[in-house]
């Protein structure tokens, strides 16, 4: 059995559609998407509301969770970097985690077959 890996990509919301399309092209169809708030190197914005400063430390980000079997991890990472990199702060991060098992509810299939 191949190893299964989870790839979390956290990036700008405005890049989401492009990323999804790029991932589709390399054959990734399954994914789970979260709306999250993030902070990192990118600092929040300060706006003025009724004359008072309003600092938003956390910026809205989108997180894609993609489980793949080992081989295309690098492909996914490369694709993501290609689409997402602007060189500006806030491009985002990719986290890679081990997965023990996957089960497809509809068929009961397990492991890589379930993906």
């Amino acid at each position, binding site marked *: 059995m191949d190893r299964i890996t989870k790839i979390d990509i956290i990036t700008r919301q*405005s890049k989401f559609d492009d990323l999804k399309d790029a991932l589709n092209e390399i054959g990734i169809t399954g994914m789970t998407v979260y709306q999250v708030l993030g902070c990192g190197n990118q600092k929040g914005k300060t706006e003025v*509301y009724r004359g008072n400063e309003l600092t938003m430390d956390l910026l809205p980000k989108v997180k894609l969770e993609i489980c793949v079997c080992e081989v295309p991890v690098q492909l996914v990472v490369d694709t993501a970097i290609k689409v997402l990199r602007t060189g500006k702060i806030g491009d985002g991060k990719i986290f890679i985690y081990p997965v023990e098992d996957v089960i497809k509810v509809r068929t009961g299939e397990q492991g890589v077959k379930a993906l």
Partner: protein
Amino acid sequence: MEQNYTLAIDTIWVLLGTALVFFMQAGFAMVETGFTRAKNAGNIIMKNLMDFVVGSLIFYILGFSLMFGDSIGGFIGLPALLSQGEFSALKEWMALDLNTFIIWQTVFCATAATIVSGAMAERTKFSAYLVYSFCISAVIYPVVGHWIWGGGWLAGLGFHDFAGSTVVHSVGGWSALIGAMILGPRIGKYSKSGKVNAIPGHSLTLGALGVFILWLGWFGFNPGSSLSGMNTGTNSLIFMTTNLAAAAATLTTMIITWVRYKKPDVSMTLNGSLAGLVAITAGCDAVSIEGALIIGIIAGFAVTFGIEFVDKKLKIDDPVGAIGVHGICGSLGTILVGLFAVDGGLFYGGGFKYLGVQILGVAAVAVWTMITISIVFFVIKKTIGLRVSAEEEVDGLDLHEHGLSSSYADFEVKSHLKDVI
């Protein structure tokens, strides 16, 4: 003393009508914000507020006199700052206090201006909006108003536009057309592949509330245009024709969308109501109730196919359907008076002359409006700029134009996910 009662009754009628027409601003604000995205909600309500504000001020300062001042060659009224003119021609037929008449005309003027913001929503610079809105209220609208209601050349020809299908709505609609065309579509509206994408509004509930408010406002807009509460026959007929034309148009639109899109479309049906109201406005006093029903049905067709045509064929991105509702149905409704007017319409044996004048007037207004507003937009584009940057548009105008992280601070707004850069 008799005169006194008549004046009081007429004044009450017009002033309460004014209040109702004013309230249409809230209706437009709700429709326009409801039909567009949450990230621009603050910007849209700000535009709706400010066009009324700017319009009220400049119309009093200049526009009113251009519209109702003694006619200069049938084209424009004698300018008089702060509405301080003689208005001798006006006073010949208008028995109300001048202030009553000014405030009534003010809320009409603001209606024309506010129509544009919907079509140009979600991508226009706020400062640019203020400028062109100013121009419409200061000159473009008053000149048309002079032609038709201020004793100008079209009035002389017998052109009939009782409450402003052409004067108000088509001026707004054609400005919206040119504006949306020059601006270009919102990011994501048309894919490179040519696909036309839907960009759903953020609150159809508020959109519907807006339509109900507008419908209410129309019970001031149309019957109030008689300028007389004494005129009970006309006023009650107008209530009937207005209401039934709107009803017929709504039903027609709903059925059309049901047939064409398989399911009755909520937002288009709401447009249908407005289409009927706009279309009957010109002839609400002149057609029979049955005529109003037919005009309503025609408006239902016109708005559905009109909006689709603008959207899919012309590829002009009009988020709220303002061009179809106000431009197309306003013009069409005016022309239909030439057919359906009980007194002189073609279908009642009146010959082609009436119809011809109606068509001429509609065309003249369209040409005037499109040319002048094009100049305005051109100058804006070359100076302060008309459209926000792509980044601002994607992030939302609330953030960049008003420093507002969101108009709905407590809710998670996900509008970005649907954008394509």
